[in-house]
């Protein structure tokens, strides 16, 4: 074994060791949530290894099996409440990601490529929106949605989430577009493409990884939000999953085991989504259109 090979091996070993430490740090609290979700009756003892006490699936069944009676045209019928809420969460978050990114892409591109009146002020305002804590703006938002007749609708929720996600998405995408050499589009435009055509056919494919990350972020922030969702929605069959989770915490007590079980179920789709989006991201990276 040569010295370089040995050094490489040692280095790779060190990298894996560090990554494993990072993974342990990342997983430990989540493992505790999982352990609690499957625990029958936890005995209060300090423990090191997150392992369920008297394992049971009771809490998981309670969360996933939630049903509700809904008044329909042909009398009351039982609906699978959890399924509906899962669908709500997925639809709302997906719509947020799509709407948010669609709003942000042209704007970010314009900010990256054009000079125009109001650009600097617009950017400053955009950044400023991120600085104002939401504590004070919930009630005005409620008023505006009331005026737009969007209260208690998923559309209203999606619009709110998407607009909140847009400033971040614009910043993220603008940086990505700026990193793409102008020559790429100019070459396409010399070949006879319009600005829009060059943008869609040349710039967007190259920016795909950044778009994926941005969409993922918008999806996650919508998927995990519960204050607005709890305030704007007045119908249990429209609730998103975090609102359902919040229901396990009461005035005097909380059903932490059920809460943990719910948290686990709520987190799974996001993890799955990241896994998928990540492949897309890797593919986008590998295609490597950017070569200076």
């Amino acid at each position, binding site marked *: 074994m040569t010295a370089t090979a040995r050094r490489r091996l040692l280095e*790779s070993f060190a*990298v894996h060791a*560090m*990554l494993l430490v*990072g993974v342990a740090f*990342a997983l430990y*609290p989540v493992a*505790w*949530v999982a352990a609690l979700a499957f625990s029958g*009756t936890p005995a*209060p003892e*300090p423990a*090191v290894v997150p392992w369920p006490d008297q394992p049971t699936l009771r809490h998981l069944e309670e969360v996933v099996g939630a049903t509700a009676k809904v008044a329909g045209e042909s009398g009351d019928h039982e609906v699978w409440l959890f399924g509906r809420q899962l669908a709500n969460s997925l639809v709302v978050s997906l719509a947020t990601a799509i709407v948010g990114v669609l709003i942000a892409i*042209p*704007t970010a591109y*314009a900010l990256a490529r*054009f*000079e125009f*009146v109001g650009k600097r002020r617009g950017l400053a*305002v955009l950044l400023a*929106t*991120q*600085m*104002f*804590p939401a*504590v*004070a*703006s919930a*009630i005005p938002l409620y008023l*505006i949605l009331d005026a737009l007749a969007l*209260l*208690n609708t998923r559309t209203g929720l999606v619009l*709110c989430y998407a607009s909140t996600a847009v*400033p971040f998405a614009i*910043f*993220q995408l603008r*940086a*990505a577009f700026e*990193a793409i050499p102008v020559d790429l589009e100019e070459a396409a435009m010399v070949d006879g493409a319009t600005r829009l055509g060059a943008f869609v056919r040349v710039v967007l494919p190259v920016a795909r990884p*950044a778009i994926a990350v941005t969409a993922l972020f918008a999806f996650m922030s919508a998927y995990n939000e*519960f204050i607005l969702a*709890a*305030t704007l929605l*007045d119908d249990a069959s429209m609730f998103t999953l*975090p*609102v359902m*989770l919040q229901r396990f*915490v*009461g005035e005097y*007590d909380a059903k932490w085991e059920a*809460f943990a079980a719910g*948290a686990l179920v709520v*987190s799974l789709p*996001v*993890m799955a989504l*990241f*896994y998928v989006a*990540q492949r897309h991201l890797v593919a*986008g990276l590998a295609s490597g259109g*950017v070569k200076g």
Partner: protein
Amino acid sequence: MLLGVWIALLVLLAPRLGLAAERIRLWHSWRGEEEAVAQALVERFAAAHPELQVELLAVPYDAFSAKLGSAIPFGEGPDVYIDSHERLGEYRRRQLVAPVGDAWDETAYVDVARAAVSLDGEPHALPLSLKSLALYVDDALVARDPEHFEDIVALAPSLPPGVVALAYEAQNAYAHAALLHAFGGRLLDEREQYAFFGEPAQDSLLFVRELLDRGVVPRDADGALVTNLFRAGKAAFAMSGPWLAAELTAEGARRYHVIPLPSLARTGAPLQPLLTVEAVMLSPQGATKPGARALAAMLASSDAARARMDRARAVSARRDIVADDAIVRAFAEQAAKAIPMSSSPQMRAAWEPANKAIRKVLRGDAEPVAALAEAQRRFELIMRPPPPRSSTWLPVALLGGFALWGAWWLVVRVRRPESRQAVRRSLPAWAWVAHAVIAVGVLVVLPLVVGAATSLFGGPPGDVHYVGAYNFVEIVTARGGPLLASGSFWLTLLVTLAWTAINVLLHVGIGVALGLMLARPVLRMRALYRVLLIIPWAVPNYVTALAWKGMFHRQFGAVTGLLQAISAWTDTPIEPISWFSRFSTAFAANVITNAWLGFPFMMVVTVAALGAVPKDVLEAAEVDGASRWQRFRHVTLPMIGPSLVPAVTLGAIWTFNMFNVVFLVSGGEPDGTTDILVSEAYRWAFTRDAQYGYAAAYAVLIFVLLFGLTRGLDRLRARTVARMGG
């Protein structure tokens, strides 16, 4: 003519009015059996009233009053809702509740419940059930019911190791009130004035501190811990409410019974818990609907009370319902001796100061006299008289002047040919951004501007008026108190700045390090690592913040378990740490949690940015013989820098306003010192007498600070870039 129009309108509307079933909305935050009973009752009611369409909504408890407050004033929200009587005073001030009118039955309810739901002699709710603490006795550990509270204490030495004598939330003013009352003290006196001071209060605190020091009562117990200790047979007694009984019905539960709280031999007075009357309330729009009043009356009827008692063990507030179950009887007996909570604003304002004082004394950080005096000052600060009305001519004049100036500026610009040209050149670009401007303008900027304007208003709900810069002056001058006292703006600002700086450093440090490792050309299991490392970001942060809080519990947390394991392994004694009793450790706990939450974002940004770095540049650098650090410093960092900078700026802003972690992990402990500006703002809005204007002023100050901070960061970056480029 006008009459004709009216008649036409009525004719047009009449058929629709006649056909549509009247919609009655009922909101509650019940769970489990209580919710099931409510559903069954409402179904029966709806069947008997086909002309009504009853909608039942279970709202998360945390969101309940905020949701009422945002919906009812706009004519939305419920007609009927269920809440605790102590909120009635606040709800009336905010016009969220109306007198119950003909739904009231003068003779039906026990006296204490009748008094609790009456405001100025007029009933504002129909009492449903009575809730208070009582004493749970574990039959396997206790042979004889205690005659006095001291008997519980005396039992402690004879209990097996690891078993505490009494589990209750000693740090909580709600639970402490029972002991305080036995010492002859009160939280509020008969005239509803703050009264948590004097000898009885001091004695009660010293008494409990001794119980904790002797291990009779567990430290840092919250509701869940009390439940778990008693359920696992690790507490001989528990002082808890009916909700504990609901948890003990599961299989393999211990044999136990419930008795009213005993008396204190030292004073001869009984321990009297606080009493909550759960009641059905009518919103102003609901009170006008006969159907809503009928629904409320049905929920408060004997049949309904009987159903709740049989299935959910609720102690009825009615005279005609007698308990047959032993546990319900014990709670009913206790309720008769309990002290109803006041529904005045003073009561709501008293909790936070009282809790802080109790915690401070029990930690041993202060003697009762000093802690109680501080609590009284805090209370008076919250209840200080509303700010004086300010004349509105100045803002009106300013606004007018500003509008004029804006119009003039616009005219001048339009008349200049070069700016007209600039606008014409901008038109194509504007087409790319217009939709974003509208969306963000209406749904983000507009609410923020309105919210910011709130900061110029003050006064109690119902009497909100323009106060000018009064809120800002009060905050910035710390209301004349010492500028760096706990809870003052300046101290909170220092904590917030330290919090932001440390967190951002950790996020970027850990994130970039992991991102660089993940982006290595050859790495086995890369996808797996990436998915696992992203998990802190994928799990909702309020869940993991709570998980971390549990891990930091002094007695039962995983961190304590780890420390014990290390201690056993290295054979050196390590004391368990009370994480939330000192600023340094509480702050560290918050930082660890937030570092954990935030690094994946920076990691993903780094990975994405590295993807855009041309490989040949890095390879060329390697061939040139550049060291690893040199490569990172002079090639990689400058290349990923532009993508990292916006992420760092945004990360700093988000950390500055990271409410969930601070609120859920340390909760500001100890003594509000770990609170950051945004959690302080939240407390003013939601736990301190709904001072929205004051909270909004905090929000505006946060905005101003962040604006300055980011401008500073921007300058710094520009200078660094210039230096690096040169």
